């Protein structure tokens, strides 16, 4: 296969970026998208040019590190991570445009590498059950209906890649945040802190500069792990319920 790549190059956070075009004549349809980029990078290095920087690690679709915006879609045309996208998905002679995630809350670090530390800070705000190591009851003390456990798992499957934010015209992080809120709202272990959790995580999400949700469902369509927007509905319900009943009722407005 031969392809043409238009890739966003940006030296550093504050540098001005631009698209550069590369002709890539040595593509096999069995290559993953990242392997195609590896081969291109080797060619660039051989020419004395700097390779294109992109995030990647496990290359098996689970670590959530890879993050390319390919032909206008996060992780490209399939509902999968970029590392699991193979060149057989593209046509010989095709021009492929590659950009970093685009969101104010995910500043570009270099080329296709962005800073997603906002996601960590949201998790730190409340994405946990407050138990210390040791002193917990036997694992089978609380039976959890299989259906509930499975639904919690569906939410917990989020890999934190940020495709939902990149897909959203508002750069909203609602799908990501709601996945964690849902997991703990569904499971009995999470119930003790469910109100504070949703309040704090939403507050942090807002302060990081993510946009609002306007129900376009682009996030769900692009999520490589098929996280459902039903989680967003659940988070809204949790949030509303927390706001009217939590111990520390906050009255908004007037500030």
């Amino acid at each position, binding site marked *: 296969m031969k392809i043409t790549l238009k890739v966003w190059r940006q030296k550093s956070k504050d540098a001005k970026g631009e698209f550069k075009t590369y002709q890539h004549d040595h593509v096999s349809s069995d290559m993953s998208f990242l392997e195609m980029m590896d081969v291109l990078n080797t060619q660039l290095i051989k020419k004395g040019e700097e390779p294109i920087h992109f995030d990647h690690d496990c290359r*098996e679709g689970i670590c959530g590190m890879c993050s390319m915006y390919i032909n206008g879609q996060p992780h490209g045309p399939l509902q999968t991570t970029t590392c699991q996208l193979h060149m057989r998905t593209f046509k010989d002679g095709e021009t492929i445009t590659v950009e970093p995630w685009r969101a104010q809350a995910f500043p570009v670090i270099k080329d296709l590498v962005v800073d997603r530390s906002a996601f960590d800070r949201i*998790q730190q705000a409340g994405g946990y059950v407050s138990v210390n190591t040791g002193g917990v009851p036997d694992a089978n003390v609380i039976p959890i209906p299989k259906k509930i456990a499975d639904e919690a798992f569906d939410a917990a499957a989020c890999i934190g890649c940020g495709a939902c934010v990149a897909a959203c015209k508002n750069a909203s992080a609602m799908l990501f945040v709601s996945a964690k809120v849902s997991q703990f709202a569904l499971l009995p272990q999470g119930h003790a802190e469910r109100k504070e959790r949703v309040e704090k995580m939403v507050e942090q999400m807002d302060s990081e500069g993510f946009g609002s949700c306007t129900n376009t469902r682009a996030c769900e369509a692009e999520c490589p792990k098929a996280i459902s927007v039903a989680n967003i509905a659940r988070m809204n319900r949790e949030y509303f319920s927390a706001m009217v009943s939590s111990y520390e009722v906050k009255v908004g407005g007037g500030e």
Partner: protein
Amino acid sequence: MKLESKSPEGPLAEKWTKHKFNLKLVNPANKRKYEIIVVGTGLAGASAAASLGELGYNVKAFCFQDSPRRAHSIAAQGGINAAKNYQNDGDSIYRLFYDTIKGGDYRAREANVHRLAEVSVNIIDQCVAQGVPFAREYGGLLANRSFGGAQVSRTFYARGQTGQQLLLGAYSALNRQIANGKVKMYNRTEMLDVVVVDGKARGIVTRDLITGKIEAHSAHAVLLCTGGYGNVFYLSTNAKGSNVTAAWRAHKKGALFANPCFTQIHPTCIPVSGDHQSKLTLMSESLRNDGRVWVPKVAVKGLKAKDARSIAEADRDYFLERKYPSFGNLVPRDVASRNGKMMCDEGRGVGATGLAVFLDFADAIKRDGRDVISAKYGNLFDMYKQITGDDPYEMPMMIFPAVHYTMGGLWVDYNLMTSVPGLYALGEANFSDHGANRLGASALMQGLADGYFVIPYTIGDYLAGIGWNDKVSTDHPVFKETIEAVNSRVQKLLSIKGKKTVDEFHRELGLTLWEYCGMSRNDAGLRIAKKKIQELRTEFWQNVDVVGSANELNMELEKAGRVADFLELGELMVDDALDRKESCGCHFREESQTTDGEALRIDNDYAYSSAWEYKGENQPEELHKEELKFENVKLTQRSYK
């Protein structure tokens, strides 16, 4: 140097309990006066950092990824063992201990392995309390499955994403401590050296991967939770970033490196498709519960998976079931891998390259129905289809062995301390619990055992012993020298400006090791490998091309530093494999086999863990032997027939 394992005296089942009582404690009010560095945030690192933070210590944690949640533990699929005996099928702590020590082919310490089995039950409790969504039965209780090498169902799992869910549990506990201010997290920061002052570990030197800034951090103790070194083979199931640098730097600062040649080759991986291949993808070993492994009885050149159905039942060789009737497709990983390779060596391999065997689900789908199989393995089947374009519901998978896990690692005593006081190694980074071969679903167990339930006890003994005011500031000349050394190494790598890329060196190293120090090894081959690696290392330092500069995000520079260390480790692996003239576990020495071609262990000569001491640039390393004493189990040759 004398190796002291510090294994406690007394009956096996009481050792850990007694030891915990004998360990010194740090007064709760004094814990806040101690600082601890944790490098790596996988299962071992995240669980250790969180647990130590909860106890009140001040922790600094480091990871090279953009978030602690990305550590490679996340990719573990199959499950985690625990001796809960929830299934009433005869499991017990002693049985898990016995299976693990036998599975490791009697090359691990009894006391460590028993402790691992003991705390396994606490791990499940802890993870469930954190909200980890393990698989459950309709009655709401936890589900189990059996896993390679075990005849009881003791494996807990979360679909095919057990590692992900366990790591996210540990990550959530870590996040809570970050929010509480007890853990300070450094993302995208790589440890490049350990600082040792007056014989004790006093801190580390790191590089900020975004700015390139080299910095020193001091602490009372340093924990390396930096995973295994499988990427020395270039192609492995490890994440691209997984590396040996932290452990290797520690080794060069005095920490002994144990059993480096013990590398596990996993039988069920997706075969290589071409030279561009950047990593190998594991298909969980749980697939062998329902999948049957076979090749045609008579070689069929280039047999494709979609044509497999054309081979009649009578013309198929289910070689694992044939050779090992009692364990069948569930023989341990090394046995399955070696037999798969033997079929390919005989020319009976399948696929375009002939380097693959079939893993067939047709019978299971016929017996249980597609829905049941899909519920168990759906995501694995999807992943396989994504990568290969073949649908495993319709045709068999093709699999081939790949490097997966390294049992070797930094030598540690019973307290998980390396031979450098104050320097600890946890999880895959140490050598302690799996002997010469790790059983399935035991890596997650060990990582979390070390982090949640061992180090919080054992580190207190060291810290109470030295006292909180025994700390060295980063102004100390040794810190300055170490920063200087790290800086000059970075500059050296950038200044060579040779003709070959870092990856080209890495690939060559990997091929050499795979060929001569892979699934089977012999004296002549190992000697060739040693020479080749030495030559490659010399060439690397004259001819590597690292583009870019030091003061920016430079992934070529990161890789170059890691490959430089792999080039040194590779030679030590070969030395270790040369020394061990027996076959044991993953280590198959062709000179040592039974008349029917099975591995032959030689307990009289080799019942030891090898621990290698670094003696300086280009000097041969010195071998120390930790004799293994077996007071509870009788050493038998493994037989899965």
